[in-house]
């Protein structure tokens, strides 16, 4: 931070000396206060610099803050459970559900509760049918999930279907974090007779709604499987609908 251009002669102010030197070098006449200019310029430059830094830092802070808020606005309640209490969701206890025998005739009770500890889901299950236009009925409340009564019961041979909302009009729904499930994580379904079917996640997929794989999701499978369905991708405000679905594939643990 030196403003000294050369050795200073004793008794002479630095600015004057520097100023006079330049005055000789520069063409044209300079107004009398010109010789004071460097110090003034220095101060102006310094304060301008500091002001710039300050406004720059402010802009960066505002920008990053705004970006963070924009990114998290809807998704700010990620860590909060949408149903049940704060903290870990306890693994349900009950009679271990036996996998269906080779005959597949074993009757299993209807499902009443779904627990997914990894994403803190703990919800009762309602019954879902088909709408008048043959689409899958969805729960009226975004806070609970439902089992499609047209699909096999969880734990019986076949692909059992459970659907829930990713969000309501104001905040996260029961399956808000469904896309975060990873293969190997556990899903528990409690049946009306208090028996518990344990499932292991095998895949998490996202599909565009116009390319929803109906056969893969609802079609027959030879073992006891579970499909958890919610919405995902971007939201189309024109139609009031998400453009994709998230499907979690799980298989009964033997």
């Amino acid at each position, binding site marked *: 931070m030196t403003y000294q251009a050369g050795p200073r002669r004793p008794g002479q102010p630095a600015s004057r000396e520097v100023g006079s030197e330049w005055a000789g070098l520069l063409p044209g006449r300079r107004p009398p206060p010109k010789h004071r200019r460097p110090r003034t310029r220095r101060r102006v430059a310094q304060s301008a610099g500091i002001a710039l830094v300050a406004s*720059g830092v402010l802009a960066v802070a505002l920008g990053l803050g705004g970006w963070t808020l924009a990114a998290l606005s809807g998704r700010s309640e990620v860590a909060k459970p949408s149903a049940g209490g704060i903290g870990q969701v306890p693994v349900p206890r009950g009679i271990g559900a036996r996998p269906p025998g080779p005959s597949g005739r074993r009757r299993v009770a209807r499902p009443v509760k779904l627990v997914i500890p990894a994403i803190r889901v703990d919800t009762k299950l309602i019954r879902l049918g088909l709408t008048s236009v043959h*689409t899958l009925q969805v729960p009226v409340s975004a806070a609970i999930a439902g089992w499609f009564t047209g699909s096999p019961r969880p734990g019986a041979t076949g*692909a059992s279907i459970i659907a829930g909302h990713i969000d309501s009009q104001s905040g996260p729904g029961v399956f808000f974090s469904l896309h975060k499930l990873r293969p190997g994580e556990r899903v528990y379904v409690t049946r009306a007779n208090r028996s518990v079917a344990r499932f292991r996640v095998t895949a998490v997929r996202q599909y565009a*709604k116009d390319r929803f794989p109906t056969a893969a999701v609802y079609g*027959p499978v030879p073992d006891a499987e579970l499909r958890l369905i*919610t919405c995902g991708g971007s939201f189309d405000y024109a139609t009031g609908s998400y453009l994709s679905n998230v499907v979690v594939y799980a298989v009964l643990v033997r």
Partner: protein
Amino acid sequence: MHTPLRLARVYRIIGLTILTIGLFAGAAPASASTGSGWLRLAHLSPNTPAVDVYLYSFHNPKALVVVHHVAYGTVSGYQKIPSGEYTVAMRKAGAPSSSPPVISTTVDIHVGAAYTVAGMGPADGLRLRVLRDKLVTPRGKALVRIIQASLSQHLVTLRAGHSLLARNVPFASVTSYHVVKPGTWVVSARGQTEHTSSTITLTAGTIHTIVVLDSPGDIRLDDLVDAAGSKVAPAGAPATGYGGTAPRPGGSDLPWLILAGAGVLVSIVGVRKATRPAGAHALGGGRSAGTS
């Protein structure tokens, strides 16, 4: 400048983490769910004693699965296994695994397909048959096929209610799948001297194999559910979101990032202005004066 720098680092780390998670999400399910099929094993030879069933990955002498003491009439559950070629071998129950098998066959497991490997026929003519099991039903229908494994009744006719399922099915044969109207049916089987019936519920979207078995002094039916899906697949994709957590329209990140970027530039200019040596200022000033 420390805070924005640290923030930037934090955001970079968050970005990398998200990318890594994304990559794993893309890679993991592919290996977990694709590239496998289903296999089940059955002993359907009436006068063949119990066997030990071995499953080998092709050319690998070490057995993947050994099922001990499988008796007549036993059908295992389906096992999900990686696609590829396998060998199924049957040895007399309790025989050492090094002994030559009574019978063996190879089965080529295709991705997403289901197979039944069944020991069939009389003991002196035992064969291992590889059956491809269907996994698709016509919309709103059930599928049924018959495995005739009764040696005492050489020809068996089966009916669901009054409608014919299959006429005069010979011993050790398998019918193709029949499309059946869903419902609960009294399924009857009639041989030359014996007959039996069983109440079987055939739900839409399910696939059944009905096995005719010898039972001491009688015949009986075993109803196997090969596969099950939804009775009727719902149309379209489920509407499972109201958009309450979706980014607002026009709520793009871009303006915020531009503001942050502009801030960084302004800060750099400011720092340079505030810290530039006096000589540089003077020269800069001089040059501008000279050119004006």
